[in-house]
């Protein structure tokens, strides 16, 4: 890359980085693709689901012939074909309170590619505990949200969204919406790894494709937050 301030050292840092992409669906597909293409040296992709036909409108790493295959296997093939210099670990598991520490400890960044809040909250807590940056993203329809959570830094996911929004049987999503948010998640991860730029901390980005606006909501960390409140700054 010949972008100012990335340079050779930036590329070396990317090569040495270990990024977890939790969920390899609508958000995880573009996020992992751009991480792989950028040369993030070690990707761990986690997903317990198999590819369904209805996924293909947005989960662009999975193609028609992949229907019925595990998403992690389908994604690993494409990511390693994209960049043979990176290592991809495929974990065909559901993220639970039992395995979340093992999956997040010692990694450089965790990217949120989940489709539900209970698992997001598990990752949010584990990342705070294990002091790993967590890049939250979520989408529905033409709306997306994004926030970078730094251990000991700004607010966490619980500070911004204390309660799980009610479950819906399915989320209608225009495929391009997670494309936008997943790309931005990859960008935030690359910035953190290389130490370039200003991360999206303490502000939640709301993307609204309906009127094509990007807005920020200011979010403050609360000292009484059970997840991040007790951490040292």
């Amino acid at each position, binding site marked *: 890359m010949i972008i100012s301030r990335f340079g050779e050292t930036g590329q070396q840092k990317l090569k040495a980085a270990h990024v977890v992409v939790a969920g390899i669906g609508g958000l995880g597909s573009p996020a992992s693709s751009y991480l792989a293409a950028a040369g993030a040296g070690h990707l761990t992709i986690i997903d317990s689901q198999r590819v369904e036909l209805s996924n293909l409108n947005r989960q662009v790493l999975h193609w028609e012939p992949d229907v019925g295959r595990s998403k992690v296997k389908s994604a690993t093939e494409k990511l390693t074909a994209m960049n043979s210099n990176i290592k991809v670990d495929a974990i065909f598991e559901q993220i639970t309170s039992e395995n979340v520490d093992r999956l997040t400890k010692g990694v450089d960044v965790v990217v949120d590619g989940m489709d*539900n809040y209970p698992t997001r909250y598990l990752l949010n807590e584990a990342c705070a505990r294990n002091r790993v940056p967590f890049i939250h993203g979520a989408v529905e329809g033409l709306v997306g949200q994004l926030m970078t959570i730094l251990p000991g830094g700004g607010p966490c996911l619980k500070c911004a969204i*204390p*309660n799980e929004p009610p479950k819906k049987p399915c989320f209608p999503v225009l495929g391009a919406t997670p494309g936008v948010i997943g790309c931005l998640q990859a960008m935030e991860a690359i910035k953190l790894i290389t130490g370039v730029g200003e991360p999206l901390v303490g502000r939640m980005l709301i993307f609204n494709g309906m009127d094509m606006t990007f807005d920020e909501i200011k979010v*403050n960390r609360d000292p009484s937050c059970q997840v991040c409140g007790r951490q040292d700054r």
Partner: protein
Amino acid sequence: MAVTVKFFAGFREATGKIQDSIEGVNNVTSLLDELVRRFGEKLAERLYSSDTRELRKTVNILVNGRRLDFLQKLNTPLKDEDVVAIFPPVAGG
């Protein structure tokens, strides 16, 4: 005194506004009442569940960047120049 309210996503569609300045409200409940007076049933539907008339769990309100349950929930007092953000968090991935 005026409080700035910022609307996001569906709340923008329901109000037709990106933000509004509201005077004469002293807590979050009175602010929401005033907003419903201004923007009518379309907004009320998005804010309150039709059977219980309680604030929907899909509605997230931050006052000066802090979540309401850390403050005093709907009784959270508001003062001049406070900024209230109303948004529906999305969940899909």
